[in-house]
């Protein structure tokens, strides 16, 4: 059949039979808003955003599901369509956190903090890791979101963070079913489905099983196709939108899958499929694991040598000299043992090195869990036994393949790897290698195809590409066959490499047959989450000493979404605490020090209460603790107490965690004889807490919400303005203002009250690190004088603060914090109590 001719908004267009009206519109260059439609999915017709009018057809058909027909006259825009689409969007967004979309301060807020906060729950766009690439948000903003009628019905689903690699927050789900449809398209039998009906409908698994047991392969395509922040990559989400995407391949098993490397600031953060198709799917290791390997905190950073039983780091040249000298002395008795997870170029150079040294050479294959004996073991070459008999006296080790016992019989051991090996301290020379996406090269898949690897991730420390290391060693040894100028020359020299044996598992179909090792290292040791798939690990959680000393966590609960109350036994702090002071917490000995304002305390029982918002690494670790746990450190009370004096009328403003922080201030100021007006701010009504407590210690309590769902529409500053006008009308005045909340809120308050000439205080503790004045992270300029928030503060004269400087400092610190994140491997596997109970088997 020939083409079909139709008109869209008056433009004639011709399409192939079977094309939809939506496709025809796109062909005609007419943009139709869509949500559930996706180019890689078949039409679904769920969202109703793509409705059109068709001459002679009743109602408003969805263009994504309507086949184009000869002579059709389609209209994509009209007042009716406009208003229907608006209704659709209102319906969709009312079940989705939307306060940032309607907030009167959105533009100012976003210009000051363009990146999303690293919150546990996204209760607004400003907290959502999807913010920078969210279609829903773009569409709502384009439609004039402030004109939308958007009540928020927060569903309060539990966060699903008990599975490896993915965080799921169905409170953001708009039920477009893209995730389920892509899962079905790629795997045939989807690991998820739309379950329940009506208002209870949601995406889920049969009987709420964890994904580990629902048939999920952890291919990540649902994450990559979800238009909202519902489904996220637990590791990559902290970095925000990747800034580069480069085609490359995976070296982790002989399948050698093609992939798209996602990088941020020159670091690999994830690898995604080249297309949303079954054949292109990746296994959990390729999708999520690779980024965690290259970012592992245990990476080898500097070349080192050992002399007289003492190891020290040296420069590359010295290290290469030592390596070459050692090998030269043992020529004819050298063994080379490397991993199959290397590039063709690397293997080729190793082979030439072996030939040049007249030595033995073996490549250890990568295997899944099953063929291995429990816990350990990789098929090793028989010639290794020659080490004992003294026929082999020197070894080049390219992975964790050697037992300590055997290493003792060697005269010379050279380790070339990116991660520490068991025989690390027995090595004479250690050369840090770039791994995976950190060096270029080619691989041959088990199917025989040759694929290129892009060098797109910065190697840590001084680590170097393995092919360069080998070439340099070859040069030092005067092996002419190893003289290459460029990597391309090496590639060109490879003529006869056979494809590797195929992998005896189906990692892309079965998450329980993933490779167990990478270069001989147990993968579950590098990425603990993998133990959920039965991968062996030397880590034994039962060996973990549960601290019995330290500060007992008496109570922990989520007061409102993302805001947690922690009550801790800390009698010393409780005995000496004064309003306005803070404490520094460390969940474990190894944790970062994190400051929190004292929200309440009770000297009699020796307990202190803190309100902790989950917005980053330390808070995430703290709120993952359960009642009865012990915190390694609670130091305080720290900082200067708030100067509580009788001033007259005092107005207090608290937002987010600051609501808790103003309670002791209100109480003390009222006791001192002031008239206290407290104002609390939340993004939306459901995020307000402690209203009663604060009302009880205030003369008046006022409320502000950024979406207008309660009290004044806006923030504390709008209420301050109202109060000031009212007081002035009555011939009264405000004598003092105190604001505690995020930097943005405090800055807005400062700017508002500056012309009023009312003394205004803000608490600058969100910027501290160590709380002793040692680290300097909390340096602030107050009236051009340098102060330390931790010892001179936390309260300062708002009008003296150099807000721009503060913003820069916070920006710089935020980056460091993200860099620091992957260092704490356990954060990626943090088990949360509610999900742990469902038994996902992650070793929690």
């Amino acid at each position, binding site marked *: 059949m020939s083409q079909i001719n139709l008109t869209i908004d008056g433009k004639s267009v011709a399409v192939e039979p079977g094309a939809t009206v939506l496709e025809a519109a796109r062909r005609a260059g007419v943009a139709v808003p869509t949500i559930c439609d996706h180019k890689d999915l078949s039409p679904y017709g769920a969202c109703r955003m793509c409705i059109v009018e068709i001459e002679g057809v009743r109602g408003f058909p969805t263009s994504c599901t309507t086949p184009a027909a000869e002579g059709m006259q389609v209209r994509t825009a009209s007042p009716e369509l406009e208003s229907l689409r608006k209704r659709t969007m209102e319906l969709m967004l009312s079940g989705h956190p939307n306060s940032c979309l309607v907030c009167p301060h959105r533009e100012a807020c976003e210009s000051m903090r363009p990146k999303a906060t690293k919150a546990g729950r996204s209760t607004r766009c400003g907290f959502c890791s999807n913010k920078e690439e969210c279609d829903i948000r773009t569409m709502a903003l384009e439609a004039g979101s402030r004109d939308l009628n958007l009540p928020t019905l927060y569903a309060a689903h539990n966060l699903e963070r008990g599975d490896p690699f993915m965080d799921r927050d169905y409170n953001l789900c708009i039920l477009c079913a893209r995730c389920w449809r892509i899962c*079905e398209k790629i795997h*045939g*039998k*989807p*690991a*998820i*489905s*739309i*379950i*329940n*009906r009506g208002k209870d409908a949601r995406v*889920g*698994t*049969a*009987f709420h099983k964890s994904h580990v047991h*629902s*048939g999920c392969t952890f291919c990540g395509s649902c994450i990559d196709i979800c238009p909202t922040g519902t489904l996220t990559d637990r590791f990559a989400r902290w970095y925000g939108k990747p800034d580069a995407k480069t085609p490359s391949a995976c070296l982790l098993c002989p399948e050698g899958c093609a992939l798209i490397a996602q990088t941020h600031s020159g670091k690999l953060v994830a690898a995604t499929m080249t297309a949303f198709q079954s054949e292109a799917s990746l296994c959990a290791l390729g999708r999520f694991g690779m980024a965690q390997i290259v970012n592992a905190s245990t990476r080898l950073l500097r070349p080192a040598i050992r002399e007289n039983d003492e190891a020290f780091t040296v420069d590359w040249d010295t290290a290469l000299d030592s390596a070459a000298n050692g090998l030269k002395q043992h020529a004819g008795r050298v063994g080379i043992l490397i991993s199959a997870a290397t590039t063709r170029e690397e293997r080729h150079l190793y082979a030439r090195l072996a030939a040049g040294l007249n030595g033995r050479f073996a490549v250890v294959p990568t295997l899944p869990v099953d063929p291995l004996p429990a816990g350990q073991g990789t098929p090793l070459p028989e010639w290794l036994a020659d080490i004992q008999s003294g026929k082999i006296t020197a070894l080049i080790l390219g992975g964790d393949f050697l037992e300590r016992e055997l290493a003792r019989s060697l005269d010379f051991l050279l380790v070339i790897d990116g991660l520490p090996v068991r025989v690390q301290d027995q090595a004479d020379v250690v050369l840090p290698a770039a791994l995976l996406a950190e060096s270029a090269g080619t691989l041959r898949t088990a199917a025989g195809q040759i694929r290129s690897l892009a060098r797109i991730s910065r190697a840590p420390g001084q680590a170097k590409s393995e092919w360069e290391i080998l070439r340099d060693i070859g040069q030092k040894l005067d092996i002419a066959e190893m003289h290459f100028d460029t990597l391309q020359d090496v590639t060109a020299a490879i003529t006869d490499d056979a494809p590797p044996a195929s992998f005896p598992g189906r990692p892309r179909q079965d998450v329980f047959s993933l490779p167990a090792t990478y270069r001989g290292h147990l993968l579950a040791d590098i990425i603990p989450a993998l133990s959920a798939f039965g991968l062996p690990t030397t880590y034994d959680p039962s060996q973990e000493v549960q601290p019995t000393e330290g500060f007992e966590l008496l109570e922990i609960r989520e007061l409102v979404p993302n805001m947690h109350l922690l009550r801790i036994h800390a009698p010393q702090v409780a005995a000496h605490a004064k309003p306005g002071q803070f404490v520094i917490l460390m969940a474990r000995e190894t944790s970062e020090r994190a400051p929190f304002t004292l929200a309440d305390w009770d000297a009699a029982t020796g307990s202190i209460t803190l309100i902790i918002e989950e917005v980053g690494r330390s808070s995430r670790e703290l709120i993952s603790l359960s009642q009865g746990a012990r915190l390694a450190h609670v130091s305080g009370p720290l900082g200067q107490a708030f100067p509580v004096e009788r001033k007259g009328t005092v107005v207090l403003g608290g937002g987010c965690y600051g609501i808790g922080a103003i309670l002791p201030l209100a109480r003390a100021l009222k006791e001192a004889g002031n008239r206290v007006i407290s104002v609390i701010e939340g993004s939306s009504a459901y995020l307000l807490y402690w209203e009663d407590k604060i009302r009880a210690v205030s003369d008046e309590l006022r409320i502000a919400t950024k979406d207008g769902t309660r009290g004044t529409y806006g923030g504390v500053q709008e209420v301050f303005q109202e109060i000031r006008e009212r007081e002035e009308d009555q011939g009264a005045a405000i004598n003092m203002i105190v604001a505690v909340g995020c930097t943005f809120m405090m800055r807005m308050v400062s700017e508002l009250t500056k012309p009023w000439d009312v003394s205004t205080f803000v608490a600058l503790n969100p910027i501290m690190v160590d709380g002793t004045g040692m680290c300097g992270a909390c340096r602030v300029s107050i009236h051009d004088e340098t102060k330390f928030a931790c010892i001179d503060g936390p309260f300062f004269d708002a009008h003296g603060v150099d807000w721009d400087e503060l913003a820069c400092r916070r920006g710089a610190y935020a980056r460091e914090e993200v860099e620091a994140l992957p260092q704490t491997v356990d954060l990626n596997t943090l088990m949360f109590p509610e999900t742990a109970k469902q038994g996902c088997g992650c070793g929690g």
Partner: protein
Amino acid sequence: MATTQRTKIAKLDMTEIFENHGRSRDNLIPLLQEIQEHLDYLPPEAISRVADHLGLSENDVYGVATFYAQFRFHPPGRHRIKVCQGTACHVRGGGMVLDAISRKIGIVPGETSPDGNFSLERVACFGSCALPPVVVVDDTVYGRMTARKTEKLIEGLE
């Protein structure tokens, strides 16, 4: 012990049911219905066998099953409490009665109490619209219920 027994019967009966149905997707609902008729509910094992039989994912079968109010996923309790949520009952406080029972036994509609004593269901209309709101316990109809009266009723059953 009751549950073990039931599961045993389940296995026997299910084989027969499967033999009587082909493997096309059209059999999904009839299969689920018949299994529920025999077992009074759909245990996880039944869902996964249906999925295997029809070549579907158990997540999809569960998705379809949870779409229909008629399917249950918990064995019925010794006392089956059904609360009418039809229009007549609804306007006379059927929702409040349901909430009160829910709080009293600590389960939501569709669940069975851990001790196996009660299960709670929400029903569209019993046809006793003259007596709203209506609660049915083990085939006995109680009309003009209030939260207080239902609590009493449950205490009597315990």
